[in-house]
């Protein structure tokens, strides 16, 4: 700024000199035009006029429009952000619901599986018992039959032995012997 001022003074001096040399210019244009008081009034008048007009135009017309647009944009962005956050909340809620439903279904499923398993196990158990009982009954019956057959066979062996013994004795002594006598004799041998 100092350089500028120095330059300015030099230029002013030069101008003044030039004016003094020529002497042709009217006296009111001597020196800096900025310091010519004759021009103050019209400049001030037009400055006030244009400044006040501009102030009025800006205040009442131009600036409210900019403010409106900026406010509308701010509102719009805020609205959109609000809507977005609301939708996000909804999404989160839906997701939570879904996960809860999934967890419920899973626990339900495992409950059902457990029940089914238990029921099946119980059924299997009763069936096994029934089959066991059947088998036991059949075994008992079989044992009985075996025992019967055995006793029958034993008695048959006794008869055969008696018959054989009687036949042998008849052959040896040449006379008839009753079966009862043979039996009587054989009993101690058979260990009965």
């Amino acid at each position, binding site marked *: 700024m100092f350089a500028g001022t120095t330059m300015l003074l030099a230029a002013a001096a030069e101008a003044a000199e030039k004016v003094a040399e020529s002497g042709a210019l009217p006296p009111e244009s001597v020196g800096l035009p900025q310091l010519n008081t004759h021009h103050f009034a019209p400049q001030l008048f037009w400055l006030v006029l244009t400044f006040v007009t*501009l102030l009025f135009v*800006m205040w009442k017309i131009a600036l409210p429009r900019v403010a409106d647009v900026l406010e509308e944009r701010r509102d719009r962005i805020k609205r959109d952000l609000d809507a977005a956050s609301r939708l996000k909340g909804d999404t989160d809620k839906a997701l939570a619901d879904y996960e809860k439903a999934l967890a419920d279904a899973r626990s339900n499923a495992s409950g059902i599986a457990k029940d089914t398993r238990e029921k099946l196990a119980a059924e299997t158990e009763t069936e096994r018992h029934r089959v066991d009982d059947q088998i036991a009954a059949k075994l008992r019956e079989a044992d009985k039959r075996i025992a019967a057959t055995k006793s029958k066979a034993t008695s048959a062996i006794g008869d055969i032995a008696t018959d054989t013994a009687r036949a042998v004795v008849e052959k040896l002594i040449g006379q008839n012997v009753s079966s009862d006598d043979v039996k009587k004799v054989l009993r101690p041998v058979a260990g009965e």
Partner: protein
Amino acid sequence: MEQFEIRKLWDLNFLGHDISFTNSSLMMIVALVLISGFMIYAMSARSLVPTRIQSLAEIVYEYVAGMVKENLGEEGMKFFPWVFTIFIFILVLNVIGLIPGNFTVTSHIIVTFALAAMVWLTATFIGFWKHGFGYLKLFVPSGVPFWLMPVIVPIELISYFIRPISHSVRLFANMMAGHTMLKVFAGFAVMLPWWGKIAPAGFMVAFTGLELLVAFLQALIFTVLTCIYLNDAVNMHH
């Protein structure tokens, strides 16, 4: 110096006062039309997604609004239209004055002084209106030892009353010095033989770029100082 000369384009008189339409008045009207036209045309679509020109208008708006909010707070926004008008008026006058052949309104001390005086008077009026005689506390900074008061208070008073002068001279001197400098180098470029023209011409190209920056910066400084003076008056934070 004829670039600073006021030329009457149309002689006008009002109750004996000279209110002639001059080249200065013409540039003020041009600025008025340009600014109003730009702001209204740019916002004519009022689109949610701005066009280039609309976002330019919005950038200027938000820039000045940010400046006002930063200095004056949210409640200072009631001064916003006034601050905005000061900023854009000075900015456009500075910039169109850079176009060769155009007159620079802000290179006249009477114009910048009138603007600075308006700011100073407004701030002073608001200060007394809001705080009554309490506004005088502005000249008695808190935390200063009592025995320093006889020195501090006159300094504060002088600095307060000199505000409109420093405020106006800063803008005026910058505009005038820049234009004078350009003129001087243009003169060199004309006077020198062809092989010597390149240096001053190149300098002028660079300096015109610098002047564009200065035109913006001085409008900004003028506006920031307006906000600071207003803040003193409204909030009395010293």
